[in-house]
């Protein structure tokens, strides 16, 4: 296996570093930590380490999570491996040699305090190269507008778990699009549907984090 493939493999299976006993079948093997360092030391471009290694692994775990073949703990192990690898890339982010894909503003809609789903989406976005601005829970139009102003050009996502407050999304979308008619807004959460998304004039409904990533990536491709 080539080193970038090894990095992707470690992220996909949540192998953080040599010390980590998880997953059991990779015990005593090097993990994302060691391989990323080795790859950078051997002169591989930091951008390739990110895009051809770390992000490939994160994408694979996202696909498995969507298919229900892995659950949150496995995803968290992958995200941890990803972030350990990313730590080696930090100086290259600062120097500008590696760039994030873009910014993604996310929050649980006003009236709702359920946040596990929103946190998972945020984590997967981070792992896929986005800078995430997490506004927390119970977020109304004012906070979304403020963030939109502070981070122009960002994608925006809203999560809702309550049937009674998911309707608050409609008002926020109207306000965001008033400021910027091209603003892309993603919506998700257990009670939502494509039909509801269409009704409130959101741009994209994703039933799972992977859907958010795929659509966000497709927008980037269109833009480039």
């Amino acid at each position, binding site marked *: 296996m080539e080193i970038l493939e090894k990095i992707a493999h470690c992220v996909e299976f949540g192998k953080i570093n040599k010390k980590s006993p998880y997953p059991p079948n990779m015990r005593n093997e090097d993990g994302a930590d060691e391989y990323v360092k080795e790859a950078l030391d051997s002169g591989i471009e930091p951008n390739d380490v990110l895009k051809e290694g770390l992000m490939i692994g994160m994408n694979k775990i996202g696909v498995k999570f969507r298919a229900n073949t892995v659950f949150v*703990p496995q995803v968290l192990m992958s995200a941890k491996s990803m972030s350990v690898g990313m730590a080696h890339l930090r100086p290259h982010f600062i120097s500008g040699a590696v760039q994030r894909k873009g910014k993604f503003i996310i929050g649980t809609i006003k009236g709702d305090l359920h946040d*596990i789903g929103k946190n998972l989406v*945020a984590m997967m976005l981070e792992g896929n190269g986005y800078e995430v601005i997490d506004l927390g829970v119970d977020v109304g139009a004012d906070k979304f507008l403020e963030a939109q102003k502070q981070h122009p050009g960002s994608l925006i996502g809203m999560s809702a778990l309550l*049937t009674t407050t998911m309707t608050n999304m409609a008002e926020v979308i109207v306000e965001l699009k008033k400021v910027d008619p091209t603003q892309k807004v993603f919506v998700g959460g257990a009670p939502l549907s494509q039909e509801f998304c269409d009704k409130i004039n959101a741009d994209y409904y994703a039933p799972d984090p992977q859907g958010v990533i795929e659509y966000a990536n497709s927008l980037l491709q269109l833009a480039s």
Partner: protein
Amino acid sequence: MIEVAEILDVKNITEEIKLKVSDLDISVADLKEYLSPTGEEIPQYFIDISNEEISKLNNFYVSAGYTILPATTEVDLLKISEEYFNVGKEIIDQLRKAEYVAVYAVTVGNELENELLKYDFQTQMSEAYIVDIIGNVIVEKTALYIQNKVAVSEKKKSLKTTNSLSPGNCGWDIIEQFKLFNLLPDNFLGITLNNSGMMYPSKSLSGMIGIGKKARFLHSDCKTCSSKNCVYRKK
């Protein structure tokens, strides 16, 4: 046997309880629904973090309390202390035979809520996730504790209890949370409500338990629920 009418004057009582988290006897098994919904093996790493965090959280306290009030049903509405509740068909059917309701709330309180937020989700995801779900289990088990306590004490008076019924469930609009809290003493357990009726601290739960000679405990069952389009309906 004591008649319901005879004990009417001893109702309208409020009890507030502080429980140590360790009394809830939380173990990794309680987290299974969140960690491994289909029963696959949980990575040892998660079991270790869970055990470590449970033992730290065991030293904290949670607050719970309830008020028992006379209740009647009028057509499809529940009437308690001049307040009418539109609890939806399933819930009203369960409460038709109740003569009283125990209106309750439970919360982790501000101190424990802050402790549950000590990890940053972006940098310490596993720890943050585990602590978050332990918080859910803490409030769920505290609500269960209240349910059992009410059931045991009412049984001594030959009264039966229903299961716990909460605003937001089975067609009962969360906005009625305001009316529910009107039945409880001011600033009950320090819980505050936002505009949509959600409680702060966020790890809180509220509900009612029906009490009566003929009250029946029915396990919540999606099959008997008429909300056919409910997104949470178990197929």
